[in-house]
Structure formats: structure tokens, C-alpha cells
């Protein structure tokens, strides 16, 4: 399996962690530090999947998801990743159009399962 995955998180440590995991799984990674950058990189790189943090400056993950859904690549699989873990938070994420909601902290195995599940389904 290969291809490009867009990751976005304002926490550098977690962004690096995601990059390490995804690289290990064999994907190309483009990394954004905020919502606006994520939208721009999505248009530039046309990734096969996006992993977005919910709480980010400028544009939050929910808004990025909505813009991606409204953009040229409307059916891009999106995994929201967040330390907001209450049922209402998950509901909001799925309502914004995300395909999956992954709670922080997460393990590499959980991340891989979600990505492969979505890519196989799509």
C-alpha cells in the first residue's frame, strides 16, 4: 500500500508521532500545523486520506472537514483525531462529515486499523 496522507495537528510532538507511524506503515506524509495549511495542502497534494486534529488554530478540524467535503475532492476519507472524547464531541465530528473519530491517546495499531479500514472500504 502506498500513497499520500495529510496529517494536521498544532502539537508538534503529536504531528511527528503521526508522521513516524504513517511512514512506518508505508505512506507518504504531508504535515500541516493548522487548519488553513491543511486545506491548502489538501488542494496541492490531493491526498488519499486525511488525519485531522479537532482543536487547531485558525480553522479547527471540524471546519477543515466541512471545507474538504465542499471542495473538489468531496469524498476524501477523513479521520478526526482529538482529546475531546465526550459522546457529544464524537457526534459533532461525525456530523461535520468525518468518516471516523479517533480518541487521544491512541496506539499505532488503532491508527493503522482505522486507515486501512477506510481505504479498503473506499
Amino acid at each position: 500500500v502506498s500513497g499520500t496522507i495529510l496529517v494536521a495537528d498544532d502539537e508538534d510532538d503529536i504531528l511527528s508521532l503521526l508522521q513516524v507511524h504513517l511512514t512506518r506503515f508505508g505512506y507518504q506524509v504531508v504535515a500541516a500545523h493548522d487548519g488553513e495549511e491543511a486545506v491548502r495542502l489538501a488542494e496541492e497534494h490531493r491526498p488519499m486520506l486525511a488525519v485531522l486534529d479537532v482543536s487547531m488554530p485558525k480553522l479547527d478540524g471540524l471546519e477543515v472537514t466541512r471545507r474538504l467535503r465542499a471542495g473538489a475532492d468531496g469524498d476524501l476519507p477523513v479521520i478526526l483525531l482529538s482529546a475531546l472524547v465526550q459522546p457529544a464531541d464524537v457526534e459533532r465530528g461525525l456530523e461535520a462529515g468525518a468518516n471516523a473519530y479517533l480518541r487521544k491517546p491512541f496506539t499505532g495499531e488503532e491508527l493503522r486499523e482505522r486507515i486501512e479500514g477506510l481505504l479498503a472500504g473506499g
Partner: protein
Amino acid sequence: MLRAVVRRKPRLVDVYLLVGAVAIGAYFALPADTVAQTVYYSVVGVYGIAGLVLGSQRNLTARARLPWYLFAVGQIAFVVGDSIFDAYLIGNGTLPFPSAADWIYLAAYPVLFAAIALLVARYSRRRIHIAVIDAAIVTFGFLLAQWVFVLAPTAQASGRLLDRTILVAYPAMDILIVAPLAGLVYSRAARSPCYVLLALAILAMLVADEVYYGHGVNYRWLDGFWLASYVLWGAAALHPSVGALGADAEAPRPRLGIIRLLLLGLAAAAAPIVLAVQTARGANAHPYAVAAFGIVISILVLGRMALLLRAYDTARRQAESSQAALVEQNEQLRELDRLKDEFVGLVSHDLRTPLTSITGYVELLASEETGPLTDEQRSFLGIVSRNADRLLRLVNDLLFVARLQTGRLDLSLEEVDLAEVAEHAVVGAGPRAGAKALDLQFTSSGDTAVFGETGRLGQLLDNLVSNAVKFTPDGGTVSVSVRAEDGAVVLEVADSGIGIPESERAHLFERFFRASTAVSRQIPGTGLGLHIAQAIVDAHGGRITVSSVVGEGTTFRVALPPATVGAEVHA
């Protein structure tokens, strides 16, 4: 009253009234119009004065005595007047008019007026308006009747001006007494037995006065009223409730009962009644007086209605504003609740973010993709990982309990095999049990499917099993069993641990409660696990119970409805 006297220690006022009643009876037993009877009359008057003075001394503070001393002064004047009267009678049998007795009698009325007015003022200090208007209506009604029936005929009668003035003065003085008496009737003091005695005393005096001056005849029975007035007046001062009147100043106004209402109605209708009576008698109807008093009374009635309406409006506004305050308070509570949720959510989020990095990078290191680890390094990473997990569990528990408090535990239900969930928890606890060399057993039998939320049931099992492992000393036993039993799916988690004292078992499921056996052994914990466990069991329609022997072990038993029954319960 006699029975009451026999039953309890007789009060002074009871004895006083009894003696007074006998004394009045004795007056009528004496031969009429004799020296003995007239002297005896004054003796009863002195008896009344003695009651007033003694009662004030016994029941009242120095500051409260003034009106009652004034009453005594008024009564003394009456007795002196009576004595002068009697002296003439005994002496030569003819009465001069006016005599010194008349001047003394007339001087007594203003003193009585002042005393009653003082009482009214003392007990009606707040919200006096309506009481004053009620009293004014009654007074003006009485004034009109007094004017038309007594004053005007007397004033217009022939005779010397001085004679007529004195004759008019008596009924005029009665009006002076009626005004504060009506004030007393409609004031707060009206709730006291002492007031009833006082009002009766004044009333007895007024009735006798009115009949006497109205008809110009001294009926023998009138003496009874005047004598009763003396005795009742003294009794009022002797009644113990006289001292409590001051303390009653904040008591509500007396209810407008039937007597007060009738009195008001009669007074308000004084103009038409007087007009009708005079017309029927063919007497002078005094149309100007009737019209003038009628107007005054109408204005007073209107004023009373206006005051009532205003009081009603005020009460309604108060009710509305307190309603609004309640709504606002409710809103604030809701806002506070929302803030708390927000705060807990924020804390949870901000703890999870660093935890994500810690567990994530520990996982990467432990996977040895960044290089091989020594046994010691691996063991150290295990410690970091375990503690990060512990911290995460704590954060989860706090978040969960905060949600429980706001009453939101929505389960997404599905059919779950409880045995499978339990086995998963047992496997998960394996490493911790192994580290303490515990014998960790798992058994299951029968159909153990329940209707529930896998995540929550897993949390329940994790809590119970990790508790059992935590509280069991090295080398002990923890056994987990799931079985179908008597129409329920029963889970038992039994350990050979330190046990829980019986006195503490009732509090075991309370938030933040920790057993003394756990605290004394310094076993860490938050006291949230069992609270959460119970909440989860409750939400699934089940029951959790505990049995324990200190030093031997503890068994938690959870009974859940089986999937078939559960489906009906949750449908």
C-alpha cells in the same frame, strides 16, 4: 371557669374576674338606692383600679405601664365623680347641674382616649393605614348616629347654654373613646386575650353611657354595665397576655372576621340607616349632616379599597419578581453546570494531549523500531507506560463521574456476551496479576448474553478485576466467573484480599469513598471505581452487591438481566 380553676393552679386574673362577678351580683342584692349600695358601688370601682395598678406592676415593664396607669387615672376620676354624686344623694337628695362630678367625669375621657391611642400606636407601628381607615369608618358611622340621635336634639333643646353644653359633652366624649377603640379592634393587638377584656370593658362603659345620655334615664341595670367595665378593665391589666402584647408587634393584622366586617358594614351604611330611621320616626333627618357624613364615609371606603388594591398589586409584583428571581437562579445553576462540564472537558483535553505524546513515543520505543532495548530499558519503559495508563484511567474516571452527576449515561445497547467481556478483562489484568504471583482464574457457563454497551461493561469488568488484583496480597487468588442463574446473568469477582469492614460496606459505592483497610495499607486509589461500577450496573438495569470478611477476601456479585429480558426492559 370553675373546672379550670380546679384543674390547674388558678391564675390571678381568673380569681379576680370571679370575685368581681360575685361583687357585681352582690351590688344588686343590696337594697336599691341606699347609702350602703352607693358606697359599695365605689368600692367596686376601687377594685377595678386596684386590678389596673397591680396588673401593670406584675405584668409590664416600666416603659409599657404608661397607658395602663392612665387608665387607672381615668377610673380614679370616675370613682371620685361617683363619690361626689353619692355625697349629694346621701346629703340632701337633690343633684345640682352641672356639679363638680360632671367636670371630673368629663376630664376622665380625654385621659382614657390618650391611653387607648397610646396602645393602638404601640401595636400598629407598621402598615397602619388600613387599620386607621377601618377605625375612621367606624368612628364616623358612630359620629353620624350620635349626632342625629343624641347630640343635635340635646343641643337644640331649651335650657341654659352651659347645661346644654355639658349634656352634649358626654356623648361627644364617647365619640372620643370610640375612635381609638375602633383602632384597637383593627390593630395587631386584637389577637391578644388581654385586648378582648379591655375592648369589652370599654364597650360596657360606652353602652351604659349611650343608653343613659340617649334616653336620659338611669336604668338600674346600667349600673351593672359600669361595674362590669371597672372589673373587666382591671382584669385586662392582670391578664398575663398583656405583657406579651409588645412582643406581638410583628404579628399579622387581625383577620377581617365576621364581627369586624359587620361593624365596618354597619358604619359604612350609617347614612342611609340614620336617614331611614329618622324618616320612619317622623323626626328631623338632618339631611345636611347625613349627606356630609355619607360623603366622608364614602371617601374613606374608597380609600380603603384603593389601599387594598395597592397592597394586592404590591403582592402580585412581589410574587412576579420572586418568580423571575427563581427563573434567573435556575438559569444561573444551569450556566454553572455548563461551566463545570466545560471545565472538566477542558481539563480532560489538556491532560490527554501530553499523555498522547507520552504513550505514543513510549510505544514507539518499546516496539524497538528505533533500536534494540536492554531488559532494564524495556522494564523502565513498562513502568512509564503503566503509569501513563493509570493517569489516563483517572482522567477517564473523572470525566465519567462528572457526566454521571449531570445524569447523562446514554448507553448504545447491543447484545453482548458478558463472559467474553470478562475474559478480556482477565487477560488484560494478567501482567499485573503475574507481577504479584496471583492465581488469576476465569470460568463461565451457560448463556451469558446480556443487552448492554460493550465499552461500559468492559469498564465495569476492568474496575472490578483491577480492584481485586490491587487489594489481594502477593500469592493470593482472584477468580472471575460468569454464569446464567435464575433468569439472570451473574458475574462474580472474588479475591482473597484484605477485605472491607462491615460498617463501611454501605458507603462503598459512594463517590470518593475509600475503605479504611485500603487507606491504612496505603494502596493508591481515587474512590471512584466502585461508584462508576454501580452507575454502569444501574444503567443496565442490574444490581451489584458485596460480601466480605476482613483478612479473608471480598466478593463482588453483579446480576444483569439476560439479553432476552433486557431487550424488553430497554425496548
